[in-house]
């Protein structure tokens, strides 16, 4: 008993303080977490609305979609149906990630309603070299993907960037980053399309 008394005498402040601080954190968390979750949803929706202008609502796909990224990692992907005001499906959007030149590149990709043409992509996070690989965020590189066929992307080093076709012109001095983006997008689209078709979610899908 004596040692227990000594223990309490020494650490009562610690115990009381832990309790008080825990309460403080819990209150702050309870108050702020709905806002934090909403922020995440807003961010994703905002980016995709830039790519699919008609989209008003985003409905997540129910079934589990698992894809394997380029470096072999398997992960669950949240695929969203983009619906217009009328409820008609205008496209799909999902996150795709993979290794870039310096670090992981995370993209949000939007495709049209039948997974045939790419609506575009936006960079969520990347750590590429400023002035070189960083240019994957720039419009002149991203706009090459808009309207390109979803299943036949190919990276070329010279070509006409304004031509909307399967050929994506690499950023000069940043071949690896450009290649990484093309691979990430193609890889994700191929696997997701396959799984969506398998699960029969595309009711007007092309078989």
């Amino acid at each position, binding site marked *: 008993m004596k040692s227990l008394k000594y223990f309490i005498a020494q650490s009562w402040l610690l115990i009381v303080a832990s309790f008080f*601080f*825990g309460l403080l*954190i*819990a209150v702050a968390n309870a108050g702020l977490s709905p806002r934090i979750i909403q922020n995440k949803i807003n961010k994703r929706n905002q980016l995709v609305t830039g790519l699919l202008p008609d989209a008003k609502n985003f409905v997540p796909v129910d079934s589990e979609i698992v894809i394997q990224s380029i470096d*072999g990692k398997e992960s669950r992907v949240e695929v969203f149906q983009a619906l217009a005001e009328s409820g008609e499906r205008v496209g799909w959007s999902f996150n795709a990630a993979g*290794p870039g030149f*310096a*670090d*992981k590149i995370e993209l949000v990709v939007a495709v049209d309603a039948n997974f045939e043409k790419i609506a575009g992509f936006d960079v969520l996070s990347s750590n590429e070299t400023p002035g070189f690989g960083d240019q994957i965020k720039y419009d002149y590189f991203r706009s090459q993907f808009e309207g390109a066929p979803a299943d036949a992307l190919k990276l070329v080093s010279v070509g006409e960037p304004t031509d909307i076709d399967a050929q994506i012109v690499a950023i000069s001095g940043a071949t690896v980053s450009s290649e990484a983006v093309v691979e990430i997008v193609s890889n994700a689209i191929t696997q997701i399309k396959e799984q969506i078709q398998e699960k029969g979610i595309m009711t007007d899908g092309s078989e």
Partner: protein
Amino acid sequence: MDTLSVLLMGFISVVLVNNLVLTKFLGICPYLGVSGRIDMAFGMGLAVTFVVTLSGTLTWMIDHWILMALGLEVTRYVCFILVIAGAVQLVEMYVRRFFPSLYDSFGIFLPLITTNCAILGLCLFLNLWGIDSLLDAVVRSFGAGIGFTMAICIMAGIRENLDMADVPECLRGAPITLITAGLLSMAFMGFSGMIR
């Protein structure tokens, strides 16, 4: 052998490509303070390696098996720092008991490791990088320590030579060390793109 190559890639990525000191700016305070002589630097590096491997593993386990399972992620920072403080305390007691001469030569450094950003930083990066296997976490923590040791020993070697050079008065000490670290980080940039 796929697991082995993933682990190896992870190890090399933390040691060279994402070196904690030179690319992520972690552990600068001891880096500036202890890199004066190679033997002290090496000792510090070893101590950090031991603590970071232990802490990285423990915090990963707590994070994945307790915090995420119970939805208590908001207490992550508090839990991590308490685990790290506890781990350092344990290491200190252990070293004092079994290697007293080593303990004497370390002096103040051992308790100071608790506030070393590299340890907490690595635990947080393990979370950020989405490491989902225990073995991967252990290898990366160990790699982080090795990377730190490597960076600090290189710096110690350079500084021992710098002592004999004619450095301007106002740049002696921390400023010239920082400039050297900048050049070192530029050299290490050559490693990026090594891992695909």
